[in-house]
């Protein structure tokens, strides 16, 4: 056991965690399974932001647009080409990755506010572009139906458990792959580039190519998350990817600690838990409709400020300091 390499340890940890999720999914009700699926999906999307921003130093405000690309690709694969859902999700990843590659070539020269502005413009314009192509179904969009769970799981196996399995497994596999990547030479190159681009270039790192690589992988992950998201809401349409989604995900990334993939699930949990907390607060103390509607936004903002003030590198960093 002492001969375990870091990679094998990581694999074992992911398998153990997957087993834990499997048991959790079996024991909780449908609502928690559904919420768990959202946690997995948001976790994956946040991981894609952390990879791009935290590791390669590029700031994207337009991840909802990349998710939309994957979502549409997946929906068309299922709905129009009648492919298997797993293949549709892989296509969602690849198409968004390809889109990221092309975009990466365009934006690799940009940095800081220019890059943020470009990706922001993308998030604003891309979903409404979908209205211009009849195959994308206009405002109504395209259905994304993964179908009933396989019959061999039995009758009691609900749609929500099926969602939970698919999204958790997809997120686990993807994040495992990425954490392997980040502990390899690529991860070190990413960090070197993020901390000092000139120094990285001096050590022989091709920063231009590396930026494009990061953009491509991040876009692929976002595309998969987009595919999962529209699976959970059973269809894709432009309004499913509002600008606010990009900002929520970024908030999740900041709360998690943008420089580390460890504990990325926290971000997903926060995004799903905040409306829940707001709900129970309102139930307990009552309040007007306006109060109910604005409380989640207020909580997210408060959390964001608290995170930036007290734990800019994530709660994990805070624990480390104490030692």
């Amino acid at each position, binding site marked *: 056991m002492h001969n375990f390499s870091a990679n094998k340890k990581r694999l074992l940890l992911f398998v153990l965690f997957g087993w*834990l999720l499997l048991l959790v999914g079996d024991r909780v009700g449908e609502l928690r399974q559904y919420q768990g699926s959202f946690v997995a999906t948001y976790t994956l999307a946040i991981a894609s932001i952390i990879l791009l921003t935290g590791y390669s130093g590029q700031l994207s405000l337009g991840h909802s647009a990349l998710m939309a690309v994957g979502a549409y690709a997946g929906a068309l694969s299922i709905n129009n080409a009648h492919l298997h859902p797993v293949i549709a999700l892989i296509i969602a990843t690849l198409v968004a990755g390809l889109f990221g590659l092309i975009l990466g070539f365009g934006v690799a020269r940009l940095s800081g506010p220019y890059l943020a502005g470009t990706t922001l413009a993308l998030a604003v314009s891309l979903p409404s572009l979908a209205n211009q192509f009849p195959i994308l179904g206009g405002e109504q969009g395209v259905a994304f139906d993964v179908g009933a769970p396989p019959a061999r799981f039995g009758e009691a196996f609900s749609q929500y458990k099926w969602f939970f399995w698919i999204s958790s497994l997809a997120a686990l596999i993807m994040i495992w792959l990425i954490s392997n990547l980040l502990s390899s030479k690529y991860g070190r190159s990413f960090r070197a580039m993020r901390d000092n681009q000139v120094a990285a270039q001096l050590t022989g790192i091709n920063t231009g190519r590396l930026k494009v690589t990061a953009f491509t992988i991040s876009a692929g992950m976002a595309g998969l998350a987009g595919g999962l998201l529209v699976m959970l809401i059973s269809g894709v349409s432009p*309004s499913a990817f509002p600008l606010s989604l990009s900002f929520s995900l970024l908030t999740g990334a900041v709360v998690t600690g943008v420089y580390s993939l460890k504990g990325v699930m926290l971000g997903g949990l926060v995004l799903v838990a905040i409306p829940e907390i707001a709900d129970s607060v309102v139930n307990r103390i009552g309040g007007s409709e306006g109060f109910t*509607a*604005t409380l989640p936004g207020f909580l997210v903002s408060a959390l964001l400020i608290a995170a930036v003030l007290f734990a800019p590198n994530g709660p994990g960093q805070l624990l480390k300091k104490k030692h």
Partner: protein
Amino acid sequence: MKRFSIVSAVVAAGAMVLSIMPAQAADPGVTATEIKLGVSTPLTGSAGLAYGKVPGAMKAYFDYINANGGVYGRKIKLVVRDDKYLPTLAATQTTNLILKDNVFALVGALGTATHTKAYAAAALAAKNVPDLFVNTGFSGFGNTTKFPTTFTVLPSYAMEAKIMSKFIKEKFAGQAVALVAQDDEFGVDGVNGFKAGGLTIASTTLYPTSSITDARAKALLTGLSAIPGKPVVVLFGTTDVTALIFKAAESLNLVSKFTWIAGSVGGDANTLLALGVKSTTIDGAIAASFFPDAKDTSDEYVSQFMKINEKYNKGVSFDNIVLQGMNSAMLTVQALRAAGKNLTRTGLINAVQDKGATFASAGRVPLNYSATSHIGYNGYWFGQLNANGELKPYGGTLSIFTTDSAAGAVEASTFTRPAMPKNGIPTNS
């Protein structure tokens, strides 16, 4: 290594604890004293501004019924959740209504792109949850294989376009027709309806709702003003766009150049006036409707609902949206009564299918519920707005037309609606 072992141990221990927790059971939302209903609808955001009054109006009517004995002794509780007109929120909020709030049935959901997704995400078909009186005219909800438990209340946009075609052909023969429609399922349903109605259209403009501006509206009207004679301009979009186009016509001095016809969605006079359209502009404009005018206090439904609104919905002005909400709530109470004292989800669905066509409602056109049709109103009447924003029957007499969403003919109807139940409290069974 040590840290890894600790993490693994914690994960494994957690798994074991979870494996002895019990599974959960579901609750249908009906007790001896209460019926819990739910609605996911926009309360905030731009759609919330226009339609946010619907749940409040429904609640007010339910409160009124509760104060008068409820439905067979059960009080109605309406759980309202805000979906901001976003599909993701509609899916999660509707799922919350079913799984967390454990509602018995849904009533009065609003929106097409949102509710189609919410329906599948919340597994309403599999759970057999009645999905009553959805506020959309999207004809796709009439597909009972895909939406077996859904009943919409508005006539479909296709019906409206077909009926409007007949009206224009009869009343404005010889005038060129220009169609200005919104570029989504609503407008496209309409365009197909005009085709099915056999109306010759000289110019069709489809605009994406997000990109119509004052400048584009002016350019559009300038283009249309080149059509000789007095063209009929059909506005098939939401009220804010109707207002934008009217205001553009005002500043270009083109109001009297056209005969204006607004669809039922975009022809709400109160909203138009509130959005700054001059009363002289809407004076004479033609609009389609299936309801009485919300300002017509001589209408027994309008006057009764106004009274309820004053007492149970304090501070909210009475308009078409409030009328619509109260009307849906009254239909719901009748459906619950028709389902009998032993209330089940299947019983409620059957009650609307079997008896829904006979329910008392404010609509001036028939309700068309049956085992094969889950679309409510199936007709329209045409009226002309006056400077006070009141819609009066076109030509002085109320003429009603009915049709279906497909290729069926448009027919004149002699429908007289059932009388308002005494004091607005249904006693049907």
